[in-house]
């Protein structure tokens, strides 16, 4: 059902964990629906210096989380905001159609984390 790439990221997810004192945190999904993910980011010179994630969900949810962190690592915030769900799925060698909507939320979580960082920054002035 899943591509080799998906299974690789499911079995060996990259950048798992939390970042204490993260610059931005984004959570999307809902355990009731079966998928919940949180992204933590560290920003340095307008670039993503570090990203970590925690995900509750199916194989696709875990693999897309892992792939998103890989795609976004080192990118500028502007570039990272342009990463789409489709980019994540494409880099994983595709996802089953039924998983495209429900389990491909990691890009959204990343965007939420970046927005959280920007909001915090505005507050600080």
């Amino acid at each position, binding site marked *: 059902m899943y591509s080799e790439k998906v299974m690789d990221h499911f079995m060996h997810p990259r950048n798992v964990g939390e970042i204490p004192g993260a610059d931005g945190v984004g959570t999307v999904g809902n355990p009731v629906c079966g998928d919940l993910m949180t992204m933590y980011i560290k920003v340095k010179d307008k670039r993503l210096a570090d990203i970590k994630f925690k995900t509750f969900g*199916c194989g696709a949810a*875990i693999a897309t989380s892992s792939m998103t962190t890989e795609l976004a690592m080192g990118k500028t915030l502007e570039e990272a905001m342009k990463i789409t769900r489709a980019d994540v799925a494409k880099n994983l060698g595709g996802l089953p159609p039924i998983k495209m909507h429900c389990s491909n939320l990691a890009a959204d979580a990343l965007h939420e984390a970046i927005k959280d960082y920007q909001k915090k920054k505005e507050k600080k002035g």
Partner: protein
Amino acid sequence: MRKVYMDHGAGMPLDSKVFEAMKPYFRENYGNPSSSHSFGNVARNAMESAREKVARLVAAEKPQEVIFTSGGTESNNLAMKGAAYRNRKEGNHIITTAIEHISVINICKFLQKEGFKVTYVPVDKQGMVDLEKLEEAINDKTVLISVMYANGEIGTIQPISEIGKLAQENKVIFHVDAVAAAGKVPINVKEENIDLLSLSSNDLYGPKGVGALYIKAGTKIQPIIQGGGQERGLRSGTENIPGIVGMGKAAEIAKKEMEAEGKRLTALRDKLIKGVLDKIDYSFLNGHPTKRLPNNANLRFSYIEGESLILGLDMYGVQVSSGSACTSKTLEPSHVLLAIGLAHEEAHGSLVFTLGKQNLEEDVDYVLEVLPDVVKRLRALSPLTPKEMVR
């Protein structure tokens, strides 16, 4: 790597003796049982011998009370639509339970659109049907009660004799979906007052694509397929002779081996359940602790999701199922788990182990060795896991 298949509820291997019995009916004895010549006789005799064997498995009085179909789903359709339409003048009310197989649930939804009223009787936390509510639901318009013998997902075995008595007292046709139970626990259609009983061949280590419906003599039912009038007019279409022969042989073997195999599987099941509950924190048993199918263990694990558990176990060569939404075509968690009162997030973390003939005690030991690691790894990934557990 060890291969441990524990998903017999989803599909079973064909018994080698069944395979041997079927072989001559593909290329040598290919006659049509409706033909008058000798080739027809050979096919007809093979079919009638299979009918006797299936009848014996469920203690039917006469072999003629057994009709062959294409499987459990068709048997449920013939039983329920056939009885509902045939008795429509008597009433339009059907009683079933909230945890039936999806085929029964969807037949009920279809019949509701056709103007029938359906009562879905609730079950308790262990999946046992509420007998009082079932009795209360019976009214003078009730024409059919449909309750499964045992639930294939959570394993709970229903009080079929009691329900059969209620149905008989109220002169209501009683249909039992015995697909998950047949061959695993003894069934006696006469003593249990069952009028219609659905069976599937593959769940007896027989071939896929064959099933049967027991129809007690005198039960009013009409066909749902129109055609050449085979199977006493109730199931038209040229009979699947190799499949029917296979189902007959499978039923014969099941009857012979049921008692010993049931004891063996019950011991393995209980070792698996106890081992998991002992070794893994925040793990729970779904279904009834004792009134359950000998081969079924349904366990749930907090903070993680079932499909990722399946994939994680598959990497160790272990195949199981889950009631999680992520493994269903509808993206809804199992209606059975919701009906026994689990929250959605609890239902997502369930795993169904259905053991079978080739599973050995070593297989259970192997699962108990690898499962804790799979659970631990996924919990370490999960944002829901309490912090103290991740250490």
